[in-house]
């Protein structure tokens, strides 16, 4: 397969770079979701505990396992954060180092670099996310059902969707040159709308359609349903259908947008401007 070898080469390059800066990477995909997201939320949730039980969350989501609810959200947050920032930082760094133009002159499809970078980020953030789940169980008393493994296809669909999103981020990085604010806003909005921090039924009615249009919402919902026994938003087969449709749509729109951005840069000759 002509695409596979160069993609794997980019994955290897990005993993090597990440291994070169282990503290920065650990802070980015593991520690920051932990102390910026989980701990403050866990402490807020514990202010609502009645005799040690999260009665409010039980009424709202169908589980009183507050740590379990938050750590499953953290897994999806880690995937989102890792992929979006991974692609943004790799492309921005290539541009700053002056290697982006050289890469794009190689006889390869240009989305090879996006795909490789997204896959490398997914490898790292999946490891971090799983580690967060384990930390949740060992240190914070989260209790996952063994059926959690049945949610694997939902997580794979999330990864497909995130590859599509990575193409959109890459297009933004190429066109805007400084896309940190956009990436920050997009990851934050997607995490909130996907229900990382709270059940999406809490969202105002006018925002809910946005949440229900995201494949990550259904994937996280299925994950929580299998891991914690929460009441799902949709019956599981329908949730899978919605997540698959959303993931495919994101990939198609992402690739189309990236190709348009690439052509525009080619015409304008502004690839190396920053």
């Amino acid at each position, binding site marked *: 397969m002509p695409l596979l070898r160069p993609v794997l080469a980019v994955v290897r390059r990005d993993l090597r770079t990440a291994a070169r800066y282990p503290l920065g990477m650990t802070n980015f995909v593991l520690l920051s979701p932990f102390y910026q997201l989980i701990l403050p939320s866990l402490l807020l949730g514990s202010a609502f505990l009645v005799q040690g039980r999260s009665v409010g969350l039980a009424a709202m989501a169908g589980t009183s396992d507050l740590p379990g609810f938050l750590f499953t959200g953290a897994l999806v947050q880690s995937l989102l954060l890792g992929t979006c920032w991974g692609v943004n930082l790799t492309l921005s760094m290539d541009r700053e180092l002056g290697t982006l133009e050289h890469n794009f002159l190689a006889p390869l499809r240009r989305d090879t670099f996006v795909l490789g970078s997204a896959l490398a980020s997914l490898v790292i953030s999946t490891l971090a996310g799983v580690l967060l789940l384990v930390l949740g169980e060992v240190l914070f008393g989260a209790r996952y059902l063994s059926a959690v493994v049945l949610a694997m296809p939902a997580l794979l669909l999330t990864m497909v969707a995130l590859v599509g999103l990575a193409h959109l981020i890459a297009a933004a990085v190429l066109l805007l040159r400084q896309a940190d604010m956009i990436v920050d806003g997009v990851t934050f909005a997607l995490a909130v709308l996907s229900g990382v921090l709270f059940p999406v039924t*809490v969202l105002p009615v006018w925002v809910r359609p946005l949440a229900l249009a995201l494949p990550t919402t259904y994937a996280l919902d299925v994950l929580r349903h299998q891991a914690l026994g929460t009441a799902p938003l949709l019956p599981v087969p329908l949730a899978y259908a919605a997540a698959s449709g959303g993931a495919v749509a994101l990939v198609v729109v992402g690739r189309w947008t990236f190709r348009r951005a690439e052509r525009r840069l080619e015409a304008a000759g502004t690839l190396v401007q920053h």
Partner: protein
Amino acid sequence: MSTPDGLRAFGATARKEWRTVRRYLANLAFVVFWPLVLPAVYVLEARGFAGGEARALGAFAARAGTAEVAGFLYLGWAVFIWLTIVLWGPGASLRDEQLRGSLESLFLTPSPRWAILFGSAPAHLVLAMAMLATVGLTLRLGLGLAVGPAAALRALAVVAASVPLLFGTGALLGALVLWLRDASGLFMLLRGLFTVLCGVTYPVAVLPGWAQATAAALPPTHVIGALRAALLGGARLAQLWETIALLAAVGLGLCAAAVLLLGRVERHARHGRGFEWY
């Protein structure tokens, strides 16, 4: 250098910093957008945790001392964002000069060091006040929180007493990062520490004993607590006076410590590799 000349140097530094702040309009968007959106997300999260259960809301009110969940969260995040403005503004200003290569030239001028150290504060104070005004308007108009003139004045007293504290922290860190040379790592660590320990999103009462003692030793915990007491807890000025005095005293102490530390860092730089080594 005489005091009027020192004040002129301070004014020039402040004007230069204000020009830089205005140059990047995203800074202004930051102070309006995040104070509105970030706490709103945690308000929704609190709704999810309360689940409309009176018992859960009662438990929160007993631990937090107020049933105003939204106000509680908005005020906590306001202080956190203020801290962020201070860290990445005055806290990073000398480091930015160092990265640009202009720090040595700055230290070759006869400007008093306090003017260099605190010159960036006024521009960021404007941003912080705009952010606090945004939060105040959100509480009053968006959330319908009944804030009388007396409560608003008490909150202003807390804010005024906290200004030297927060900008003293920024100046101290500004001097410290010249020595540590890793502003971003230190600031991320501090932000994490403040988020987790200072009660930004939760009442400190939910922390274990040792963590409560640590939280009590961190000044931002008291800024958040005093603001919440003034605006949500109906505390009178007599009840807040002690905290206000403590905040002002610690703030002035931090400002003095920052000037002393910068002096030491400068002496160290003069006898070592200078400021261009980073």
